[in-house]
């Protein structure tokens, strides 16, 4: 436990439509999702006095001040950890509301990942990819699946992990997506379908890779004290932490390429929360690739390193299993909203608003972010 344990809470959530062609600007998507989250929290846009925009997609605090007429924004920051940004942002937001620096902090993401620049073009412009931009991209290692595939290959060679085990993750998450009305991928999928999907970068097949999507999502963090007077049941942040892997800018140089920054974040988050992996009722795990889900389950301590393959078998990670994951369909099958859709889903689950995918009696949940070649963030929430 720490002095921040339980001091901040998620008080509002919002999502735009998810699609492959939004027809809206990235800023408009962030604003639309934010307005919904602010309304859900029972607030006026002018009440927002802290903001963490998604810098990678070009959002800046000034956009929120301008569009919402905020008179005195007291706190702004960015947490540039790629797909771990919004979960890492929870840490900054809780620090701000717990110390009284701000009352209501907004975290928003909007992107045109499908209709805008695709990942092969996008990553070359990101400063955090400067190292591999010079030393690996000229050789043909351009996009995340190529950068992550050697991690998965080494895991397979060392521990006997199989492609069918990765398929268990893809199929489970698709089954959950079929229960969610916002999901972009709702066609049934079997392990054989996964095995028949085309190879992108061996051992990662098409169905091991997430979607590229358009859309926006947002949430509001307020102090738990203040949240008692707000309309929604506060979803308290029990623990939150970020972790950066060794050699964060180049997987090639990482001593153990089968371990992510998540392994550094997880013990800190669990310790702050005062709970352990066995206490988690539902987990929304950042799923840019099936292998990254499996690796995080190990790094989070749900199983030992090397045992992720067997852990995901036998229905354990599906609804009704010991650890249901990605109950909304994740980045693999719902939409790629950079994991902010994972925070929204966990909040719904803990409010009891999970719809057909509601995990019965869910009281404590975990959400992760992962990005930029190994950065990890973990948050543990409770109703």
């Amino acid at each position: 436990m720490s002095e921040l344990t339980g001091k901040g809470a998620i008080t509002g959530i919002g999502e735009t439509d998810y699609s492959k062609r939004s027809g809206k600007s990235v800023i408009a998507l962030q604003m639309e999702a934010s307005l919904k989250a602010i309304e859900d929290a029972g607030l006026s846009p002018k009440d927002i006095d802290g903001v963490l925009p998604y810098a990678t997609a070009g959002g800046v605090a000034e956009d929120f001040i301008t569009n919402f007429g905020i008179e005195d924004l007291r706190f702004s920051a960015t947490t540039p950890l790629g797909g771990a940004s919004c979960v890492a942002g929870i840490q900054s937001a809780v620090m701000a509301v717990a110390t009284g620096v701000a009352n209501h902090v907004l975290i928003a993401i909007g992107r045109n990942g499908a209709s805008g620049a695709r990942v092969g073009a996008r990553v070359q412009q990101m400063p955090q990819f400067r190292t591999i931009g010079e030393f690996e991209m000229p050789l043909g290692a351009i996009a995340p699946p190529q950068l992550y595939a050697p991690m998965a290959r080494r895991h397979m060679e060392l521990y006997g992990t199989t492609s069918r085990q990765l398929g268990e993750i893809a199929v489970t998450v698709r089954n959950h997506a079929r229960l969610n009305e916002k999901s972009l991928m709702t066609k049934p999928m079997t392990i054989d379908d996964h095995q028949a999907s085309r190879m992108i970068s061996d051992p990662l097949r098409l169905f091991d890779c997430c979607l590229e999507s358009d859309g926006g999502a947002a949430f509001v963090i307020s102090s738990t004290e203040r949240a008692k007077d707000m309309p929604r049941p506060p979803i308290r942040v029990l623990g939150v932490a970020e972790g950066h892997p060794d050699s964060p800018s180049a997987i090639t140089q990482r001593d153990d390429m089968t371990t992510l920054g998540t392994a550094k974040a997880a013990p800190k988050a669990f310790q702050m929360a005062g709970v352990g992996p066995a206490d988690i009722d539902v987990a929304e795990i950042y799923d840019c690739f099936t292998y990254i889900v499996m690796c995080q389950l190990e790094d989070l301590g749900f199983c030992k390193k090397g045992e992720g393959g067997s852990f995901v078998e036998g229905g354990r990670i599906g609804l009704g299993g010991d650890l249901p994951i990605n109950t909304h369909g994740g980045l693999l099958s719902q939409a790629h909203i950079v994991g902010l859709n994972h925070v929204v889903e966990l909040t719904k689950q803990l409010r009891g608003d999970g719809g057909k995918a509601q995990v019965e009696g869910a009281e404590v949940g975990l959400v992760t972010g992962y990005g930029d070649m190994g950065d990890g963030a973990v948050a543990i929430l409770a109703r």
Partner: protein
Amino acid sequence: MDAQAYDKPLPEPDLDSKPFWDGLNNHKLMLQHCGGCGRIRHYPRPVCDSCYSMDVDWVEASGEGALHSWTITHHAFLHGFKKDLPLLLATVDLAEGVRMNCQLKGVDPADLNIGLAVRVAYEAATEEVTLPVFVAAQ
């Protein structure tokens, strides 16, 4: 080769990395060697993370290494690589204790395994840039 016809990304060496790229043009694999504690490091950078010395010199590597991991890419994320598919990208432990990521050429995928012995070779991309590749060690 006509530089304008080259349609893949090219490195933009800076003051910290220029000796590495200059070395490749001379068919030498050059690595940073810490002037303070003697550690070899890669990729090139200004500070030794062991002794914090900024004193650096460059040594020629043996070019010998062992396969650490790999991927075979079947999808061209940039158009320029389409004609190279499938593309075998290897992560290799160099004898000097650092790693490199390069295309591995002339090896049957069925022979791939951790520890496979490889060595560095050189391919001119343009008149100004030579890229490293791995080939099977003979």
